[in-house]
Each structure stands twice: as C-alpha cells, then as structure tokens.
C-alpha cells in the first residue's frame, strides 16, 4: 500500500529535520507528537542563528543600520504570518504574541471586557482546547455572562443541527478550526454564516489547522483568528493573532509598556498605531524571524501537498491500527472521510495511555498520553486520558509501521 505522490519527497523532507535523526537506545526517533509541538528544519534554526549573529538589536527605534535591519526582519515575519492565512492587511492586522494562548487572552481581556457585559452570551464548542475556554471562564467569574457550547455528536463532529438556536442572541462565537484530540476539521462556513446572521463576531482557533492545510481567513469570512508558531515548524515563544483592522482599532490595549504607546505622561497615555498598540515591550524578534523561515519552508513544499500527504498517511495509519488491533477504539472519524486531519486519539484495550506511551518510548516512538488540554472533551468522551498519535509532513509509512510493532510490544507487556 505504497503512498505515491508526485513531487512529494518525504525522505528529503525528513532529512531537513535534525531531531528526526536522533537515535535513542539504538532506535531512530519516530516523532508522532507534532500536534503538541512540531520539529524544526535546519532552515529555521539557521535563520534565527543568522539573525543573532549578524543583525540583532532592539527594533523600531534605533537609528542605525543593524537596528533598521532587525526591524525589517522582525516585520517580515509579521508579513509572512499574514500571507500564510491571506490576511487582507498583514502590516496592521497581525499581532505577534508569545503563543496563541496569549492571543485568545488578549481578545478576552480587551474585546471581551469592552463588549461582554452582564447578560451577554458567547458560544464555544465542547471540543475546545483550554486556551479557548479558560480565558472566557475567567471573564465569567467577573461578569454574569452565559457560555453555550456547541455539542459534539456520536460521529465526533460538531452537531450543527441546531445552529441558529445556539447562536441566537450571541455576541461572540469562537470555535476550533481543527480538534487537537479528535482529528476533526470544523466546517466553518455554516457556523460563520449563522453567527453573522445573529450579529456575532466569529473567531476560529487555527492552532491545529494552519500547519496542515491552506487557510484563507477572507474566504472563510472570519473576524478573528489565531495560530501558534511552534506547531508549524517555528520556534517557541511566538503566536499570531489576526483580526480585522476595524475590530482591532476599537479594542482597548492589552499589555502596557514600551512600543504600544504614542505618548506617556505622569497621568495618562495614548496608544500607538496598529499593530504595535498590542505589542508591549521588546517583541519576540528572533522568533518572528524563525516563524518567517518556517512559513517559507511550508510554502516551498506547498500546503496543498502537505495536506494530501497527511491525508494518505492518516488513512494508512487508521487502516493499520484497526487491522492489527481489534481492541482499539478510535475517538474520531474513520479512514477516508472528509474533513479529517492526522490526529488519531484512541483507547488501547484497557491499557492506560501512560503505559502505552512509556513503552512506545522504549521503541523510540513519541506519542502523547493525557487529556490534551481538553478536559471538557475528555469528560464528554467518558475517559480520563487518551493516547494520541499525530502525523505531520515529515512522517511516513515506516513511522506507522514502527508504531504498530511497538504497540504489539505494549500489548504483550500488559497482557
């Protein structure tokens, strides 16, 4: 069952990632935890290194060549971050944060506190990551707001049958673009339409979407959107918030300090223009350079091709798992279904995910075991934890084959 895809050379791609060359106790690493955090190609590390070695200085105010060059490189990362999702005005609408969690907190603290007063209704889903729940629960501790959750059905997908009812009277709807547990990809179109009909803004969480397929925030007609650098071959320490300029203009500032101000007096201050209004203090400069390089790497391969590769590999993995292990219970859509990404969560008989993961590690296979920062979803699934395999552009059939072998060993050990 060979995967054939013209021009997609997974062996070459794999060799671009130094960590995937690591040998642990005689086993080559098989990295199947990219949904938690991906690995980085040489080009990303080199871009950051080059930045630090030749061009580092603080940005935006220096009147000397190195500082101007540092500013240019920092702002280039922003433009790349916007280009990747087809943001209409990246130079003003892309806010660089420390991770996407900060981005959602920024929205909850500023847009949320300015617009959601007692009695307001917002809509989330049962399959959100904590990053898109807790900021709203914190707001709910302060104010009498109602949070409605779009439920998931038995097919693990959002149940959109009651959509108009769900969003009725809501001011804000925020849904994950792709689940980090179920592998489902959200059908955003009907949600955006219903929300806009109801007069609500719509934010989507792109953390698990942007790394894996082309995303166009304009075509999706979204209002706000976030994603995170380290899951898309970029460095840690950087996240991306996009929102329509009109929304950002209206929002009060979030963090206060240098760079986000226009003027400061002892008794007050005025804010800077977009996007710097939301970027207080020294920003993640080298991280923006790294993010830009990561995006270029993805663009060069092509996100369409990456998505196609992942789809084939996901089918191979789902088939292999079900074929070898009848006791496996997969929490998510099956092989060859639409809107399905490369995240595969499962129960392995009654062997606890911690034990599964620990034994897999002995074979060099890295997978995640736990609640995946989605405790409400875990409760809905009726489990405390799952084992999660996640596939990315550098994984191949051989990785899946090693996983199957290693799972066989797990079974033997705990039989």
């Amino acid at each position, binding site marked *: 069952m060979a995967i054939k895809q013209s021009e997609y050379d997974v062996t070459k791609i794999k060799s671009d990632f130094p960590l995937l060359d690591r040998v642990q106790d005689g086993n080559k690493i098989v990295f199947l935890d990219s949904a938690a955090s991906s690995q980085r190609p040489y080009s990303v590390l080199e871009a950051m290194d080059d930045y630090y070695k030749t061009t580092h200085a603080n940005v935006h105010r220096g009147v000397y060549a190195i500082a101007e060059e540092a500013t240019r490189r920092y702002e280039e990362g922003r433009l790349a971050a916007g280009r990747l999702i087809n943001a209409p005005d990246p130079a003003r609408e892309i806010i660089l944060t420390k991770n996407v969690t900060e981005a959602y907190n920024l929205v909850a603290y500023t847009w949320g506190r300015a617009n959601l007063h007692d009695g307001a209704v917002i809509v989330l889903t049962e399959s959100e990551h904590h990053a898109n729940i807790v900021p709203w629960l914190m707001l709910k501790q302060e104010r009498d707001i109602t949070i409605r959750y779009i439920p998931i059905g038995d097919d693990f997908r959002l149940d959109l049958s009651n959509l108009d009812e769900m969003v009725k009277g809501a001011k804000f709807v925020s849904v994950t673009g792709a689940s980090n547990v179920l592998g489902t990809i959200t059908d955003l179109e009907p949600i955006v339409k219903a929300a806009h009909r109801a007069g609500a803004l719509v934010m989507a969480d792109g953390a698990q979407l942007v790394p894996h397929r082309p995303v166009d925030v304009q075509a999706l007609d979204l209002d706000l959107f976030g994603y995170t650098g380290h899951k898309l071959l970029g460095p840690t320490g950087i996240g991306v918030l996009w929102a329509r300029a009109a929304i950002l203009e209206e929002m009060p500032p979030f963090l206060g300090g240098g760079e986000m101000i226009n003027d400061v007096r002892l008794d007050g201050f005025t804010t800077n223009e977009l996007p710097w209004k939301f970027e207080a203090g020294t920003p993640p400069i080298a991280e923006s350079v790294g993010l830009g390089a990561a995006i270029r790497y993805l663009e060069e391969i092509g996100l369409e091709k990456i998505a196609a590769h992942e789809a084939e590999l996901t089918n191979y993995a789902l088939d292999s798992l079900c074929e070898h292990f009848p006791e496996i219970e997969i929490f998510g859509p099956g092989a060859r279904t639409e809107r399905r990404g490369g995240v595969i969560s499962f129960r392995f008989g009654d062997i*606890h995910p911690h034990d599964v993961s620990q034994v897999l590690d002995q074979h060099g296979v890295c997978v995640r075991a736990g609640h995946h920062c989605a405790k409400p979803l875990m409760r809905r699934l009726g489990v*405390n*934890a799952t084992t999660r395999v996640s596939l990315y552009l550098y994984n191949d059939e051989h990785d899946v084959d090693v996983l199957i072998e290693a799972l066989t060993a797990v079974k033997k050990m705990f039989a």
Partner: protein
Amino acid sequence: MAGLEDLYREIILDHYRSPRNRGELATPPAVRIEGFNPLCGDEIVLYLEVTDGVVSDVKISGQGCSISQSSASMMSAAIKGKDVGEVRALIRSFKAMMSIPESGHEHDDGPVEEIGPIDPETFGELAALQGVVKFPVRIKCATLSWNTLVQALDEAAAN
C-alpha cells in the same frame, strides 16, 4: 536513558494485574478520600478505617495507570494492620525514596535528605517502585495514593 525494566518490575505488573484490597468500605466507620492526578486524570478513592490507632481496614477503587494502581495496591498491603505512627513513618520513607522533600514540592531541585539504602524489612515490595524516580513524569502516578493516604489519616484523626 533508564530502561523500562527499571519501571515495570514484575512485581509491579503483578499488583497491576491483581490489585490487592480493591473495593469499598462503609463510611463511617471508614473515611473516604478521593485523590486526583490532574496531569493524566488518574483517580483514586481510598477508604481507610482506623481503630484504636491502628489501620484496621483499607480499600481502594478508582482508575489509573499501572504505576498508580500498583503503588496503591502495594501501599494498601503495607499499611493494613500497622499503627498510625508506623504508617506515617512509612509515608515519609516512601516520599524520600521518590526524592520528594518533606515540604512536598515535587519539582524542587534543592538538596534532598540523604536516605540510606532501601530497607527491604520496612519496604518490602514497595522497594520495587524505586525505579520510578528515573521517570520524573511518573512520580506523580506513584505518589497519588500516598498523598491521598495523608489526607485520609488526617481526616480519620480529626473524627
């Protein structure tokens, strides 16, 4: 890297497969305490009956990984019939074996009281859990039941 055989000793797998003192007790006379490992969602429910300063009965229910289950099972076997003072001493020794200083902060890298070689007399089968220390993420699994026990003893004393 530490080998798996350090973690999954045969005796651990035995307790995991056939847990001792599984079940529930009537409350009162027993106290019932729930323990929870937020990292992996493991849960343990501990029923403890103390009569005249002695652990007269103990039962465990809940779910978790092999390490948390077997640790709870071994613990139940080790404390049953012991007096509360002995049990508290055992808890101290067990935590020391897990490199957790008395203050209880499991991530402190500060100096840990030197503990002598594990004494099989006191520790018995529990010594098998020593290997867990090499797998820091799993320490919380191994100590879950013991932290729950501390709470149960406190509550039993308060009654």
